[in-house]
């Protein structure tokens, strides 16, 4: 079954849909967590600490977090590799372009591909910036996410990268959520409107929620 899945274009889309949904669920949790920043450094940093102690005493310190990280890493890799292979197939399937161009023809495809690449690059920067601290502006303080976030969004490029990426998240989720529903076969004529609405609302809330943080820093609400 795994072989059938991976060898088929429909199967790879399923891999993308499932990994996408996993990442989407994570994003929802992530944005809720992020918004805690508006309750001040203590609560936010405490939340950061709690993330490492989830599941104790059954789980050891940071085990749950690492479990989540591994699942996410697998999801990102599966999503990206499938996307890459499918895109290769798609481009090969249409080797010569139409002389008469229609701009609308590939809107969704284009935003997904470029959006995906942007998001991939963003994730790398984001991890190096706020998880490992390698590219963090100013002094990275382990265990003090609040201060780290403020550092990042005190730079102009930190804001630009983040906001562009979050807009990409919105567009990606908007088509991706609905698209995943179709790929997983849960779409139907009667549900289509609902699915599209959920996709739009999700995209909007996620983007707004994420962007609220840099905006908060910029406006001085968070400092």
């Amino acid at each position: 079954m795994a072989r059938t899945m991976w060898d088929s274009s429909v199967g790879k889309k399923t891999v993308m849909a499932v990994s996408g949904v996993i990442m989407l669920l994570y994003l929802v949790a992530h944005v809720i967590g992020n918004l805690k920043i508006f309750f001040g450094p203590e609560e936010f940093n405490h939340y950061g600490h709690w993330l490492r102690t989830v599941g104790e005493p059954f789980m050891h310190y940071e085990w749950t977090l690492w479990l989540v990280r591994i699942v996410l890493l697998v999801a990102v890799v599966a999503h990206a590799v499938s996307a890459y292979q499918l895109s290769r197939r798609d481009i090969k399937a249409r080797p010569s372009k139409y002389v008469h161009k229609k701009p609308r023809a590939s809107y969704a495809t284009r935003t997904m591909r470029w959006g995906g690449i942007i998001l991939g690059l963003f994730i790398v920067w984001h991890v190096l910036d706020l998880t490992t601290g390698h590219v963090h502006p100013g002094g990275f303080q382990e265990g003090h996410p609040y201060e780290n976030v403020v550092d990042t969004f005190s730079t102009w490029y930190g804001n630009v990268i983040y906001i562009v990426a979050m807009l990409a998240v919105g567009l990606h989720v908007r088509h991706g959520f609905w698209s995943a529903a179709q790929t997983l076969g849960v779409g139907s004529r009667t549900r289509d409107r609902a699915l599209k609405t959920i996709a739009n609302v999700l995209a909007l809330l996620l983007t707004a929620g994420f962007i609220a943080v840099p905006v908060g820093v910029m406006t001085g609400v968070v400092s």
Partner: protein
Amino acid sequence: MKLTLRVWRQKNADADGTMSTYEVDGISPDMSFLEMLDTLNEELILKGEDPVAFDHDCREGICGACSLVINGDAHGPERTTTCQLHMRSFRDGDTIDIEPWRAAAFPVIKDLVVDRSAFDRIIQAGGYITAPTGSAPEAHATPVPKPDADLAFEHAECIGCGACVAACPNGAAMLFTSAKVNHLNVLPQGAPERETRVLDMVAQMDEEGFGGCTLAGECATACPKGIPLMSITSMNKEWLRATRKVKR
């Protein structure tokens, strides 16, 4: 009406193609698009030039032979087949670009004629119900609920023209394949081969070099028979169900 046509000319599968420009005059708005091309071809023959090759047959919108991309749209600006497109959809003095279906799985044979045999092979892979002649039970032995019959019919309307592939930015054949899968899978007669059908047809579709689906929706917009995009969703569902049921 007087029109300028820019037509894709390609001598054969191996040759390079290019857009050539022609002027046609005296076009009546009541003409079909193909009758307009007939007019051009009659002139070209008399001039000793090679007439434009294009596929066409029934000219009633049902055989699925005609296959032109007109101004970037598969089958042109109306939701119909090229043969049922009339010149009243254009205006005097217009320039019209005419190109063949473009997809790796549909290589050009000549000018606007492409090879769509990949579709036949998808059907051969499983787009049928095994019912050898003489083996059929009495037709009323298995009633089919009307909604199912109607749904099957809606998908069975596909004429196999390939506009879905031509319009798809990925050159995917998902709409074509899903139309047949859904037509047969929704009927009780199609149930015994329900799983193998969808698995084999999708595998063949991939094998032919069609692209994958990004749900851009262009196929359903171009489909002259109005096969809905949801058809693809239903096929995905059938495919996932089949991978769970069939051990391969």
